[in-house]
């Protein structure tokens, strides 16, 4: 099962963890890990090609910060009589990396989390809401088709003069009003259908094609263990990193290594999942 085929619950847990931890930390190692994994995951899973553009964003944020923030001990040079410090520059780049990492994770989320998964979540919140959502998705192509039919019919009758501005406006207005009547008329029929299929019943459930498999359990278990480790070490302060007035790492090096390992494991999960899946496929083919 590839990453995007996992159960929505596993995916949500993963993305919430990855994004939340990236957002609350300023530790450079953690940020770089998140950035690197986010980049690679996007490159391999969503085959994104415009990922490089975000590097400019990092550069802009990195250079902008020292222009406005003058904290820090190491002065590199003076810009318009203001201190331009190394600490502020590093802090700026780290903020940029943090923002772009979060963007990368959201990008992957957008690629992986298609409407069927969104609908699953809505169904958990309110089954009726999820019906409304899928009705809307069905409605859009239908309205497009009707609009085209009406437009073509009106054009071929030449009921409006297309070459004058007022004629064009009249045409659009009349097509639109006909489209609204047609949609309402259709909606009444659909409402009847829904009523006859018991939509008004109180105890509605939401069915989905997703089922929770062993792979999901393993994936979620790893995510949760990582989450516990990271939360524990992060809040016990072993990885605190200060930028101002001078850069200073206050944590315990050995324990921090465990934290880094746990965080790397978490961020690399999508890729690990897909690589093992590919390997298994190749192995099963070579056996045949």
């Amino acid at each position, binding site marked *: 099962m590839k990453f995007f085929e996992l159960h929505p619950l596993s995916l949500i847990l993963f993305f919430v963890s990855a994004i939340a931890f990236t957002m609350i930390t300023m530790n450079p190692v953690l940020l770089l890990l998140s950035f690197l994994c986010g980049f690679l995951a996007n490159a391999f899973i969503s085959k994104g090609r415009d990922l490089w553009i975000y590097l400019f964003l990092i550069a802009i944020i990195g250079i902008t910060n020292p222009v406005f923030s003058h904290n820090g001990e190491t002065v590199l040079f003076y810009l318009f009589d203001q201190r331009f410090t190394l600490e502020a520059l590093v802090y700026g780049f780290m903020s940029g990396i943090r923002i772009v990492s979060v963007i990368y994770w959201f990008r992957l989320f957008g690629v992986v989390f298609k409407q069927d998964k969104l609908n699953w979540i809505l169904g958990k919140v309110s089954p009726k809401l999820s019906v409304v959502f899928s009705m809307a998705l069905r409605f859009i192509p239908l309205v497009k088709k009707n609009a085209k039919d009406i437009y073509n*019919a009106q054009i071929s009758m030449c009921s409006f003069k297309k070459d004058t501005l007022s004629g064009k406006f009249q045409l659009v207005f009349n097509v639109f009003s006909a489209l609204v009547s047609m949609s309402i008329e259709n909606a009444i029929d659909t409402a009847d259908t829904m009523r006859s299929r018991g939509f008004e019943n109180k105890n509605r459930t*939401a069915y989905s094609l997703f089922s929770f498999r062993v792979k999901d359990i393993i994936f979620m278990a790893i995510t949760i263990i990582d989450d516990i480790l990271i939360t524990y070490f992060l809040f016990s302060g072993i990885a605190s990193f200060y930028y101002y007035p001078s850069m200073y790492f206050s944590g315990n090096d050995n324990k921090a290594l465990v934290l880094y390992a746990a965080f790397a494991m978490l961020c690399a999960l999508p890729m690990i999942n897909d690589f093992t899946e590919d390997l298994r496929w190749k192995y099963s083919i070579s056996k045949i």
Partner: protein
Amino acid sequence: MEILNIKNLTFKYPSESRNALNNVSLSVEKGDFILLCGASGSGKSTLLRLLINSLAPFGEKTGEICFNKSPHIALVGQDAETQIVSDTVWHNLAFYLESMGEDSNSIRAKVAETAEFFDLSGIFHKETANLSGGEKQLLNLASVMVADPDILLLDEPTSQLDPIAARHFIEAVKRLHTETNLTIIISEHRTEELWGFADKVCLLEDGEVVSYASGNNTYSALKSDCIDLPFALKLYKELDVKKEYPISISGVRKFLTENFKNEIPELSDEIELNNKVALKACRIFFRYEKNTPDILKGLDFNCNFGEITTLLGGNGSGKTTFFKLIANLNKPYSGKIKNYGTKTAVLPQNVKSVFTKDVLREDLALISENFVDICKELNITSLLDKNPYDLSGGEAQRAALAKILLTKPDILCLDEPTKGIDSKGKRAIKEILLDLKKQGIAIVIVSHDVDFTAEISDKCAFLFDGQIVSNGTPKQIFSSNKFYTTYASLASRHHFKNTVTLNDIIELCKRNGCY
């Protein structure tokens, strides 16, 4: 065991003076297959809707509808499009069960089983917007069947489908009945496959039950001719032979050989040649997008003024696309269409897309103020103050035709003009078209309806895979086609020559005389 009993049911819509249903009494046994017949507006839909509480129309109701043990009733209606609720096929199937509060595992099992029965597993993950009309209607049937109803009501389910999809749908309904012994009440204009199959045929006329008996017995009770009879019955009734024959094509074959001589084997095929060309298309190539395959591949076509030319062909053969080219909505990338007319008008398949105003009178006035004469001609004067969306299929068709004729076209194109129209409506359209033809208008029809085509056209062209593969008069086309032809031709070709319509057979039988 009786499952449904209707006693003296009378119903009147608040806005109308006449009763929609008048003293209707019916008794339905469990496992019955009942065919409800009647012209448009005879009260079929009203009767079916009154059986379901949540859909019952508002109005004055007297009489009783008694059920045995409050059965679960499901309805599939006319319009395949509006009965689809959700964006994916699987979600539509699950919808009913979700409403009933079933848990995921039982929904999974029931949906799978139903999808398999109706052969929907191939499109299970598809989006409903990409389905064909036939698939949509089959999905609607499956979507109510998942909930295992005790009575299934079908309200003209095939009226918006092409004949092949319609036959497929009817087959599914029949299979459902024979395999599960489900109680089914179906109202249909396509009675060909159902008349003999149904346990009982119920004839409704102006809201009254004229006859309620098995198909063979109903036949003798028939009075008016506005009911959609199967082809065989129409013939038997016209020729009035005492002995009974089965209602099927083989029945007709036997009927003809046993009763009629064939000394005069054929009617002469008069072609009135009219040489004034209206439209000439030469080697047309067309595709919608750069990377999609060609829809039209070197199509040649021409039609003359004062003639009715019909384009026949299955779904996806490019008929509707060709119409768009004629109407100048699209342009071919190769080849030329020469249009010798002054104005070309197209009546689209979805006739309601023609109207833009709430009142028909205002709508017609958009085109021209002098609509009174045309309205009289098309018999829609009484409808002028109605909302176009409230008109029945046949009425809407005529109103749309009126609007299009107001643009004074000399080339008129009609896309499936008989879709969802009963035989009375078809006759009205036929008369109108013949009249227009006499006025010298060139009429091009795209249709699936071979029987209608054979009756009305001067020339037919058979479109397949983007090309015209054969053309000629209906007699030439349909008597040489072995499969894609009319019932009349299939049933009479062993006995007569070139008989392609019911009237041809009747005419020849009368000329030849009985044994």
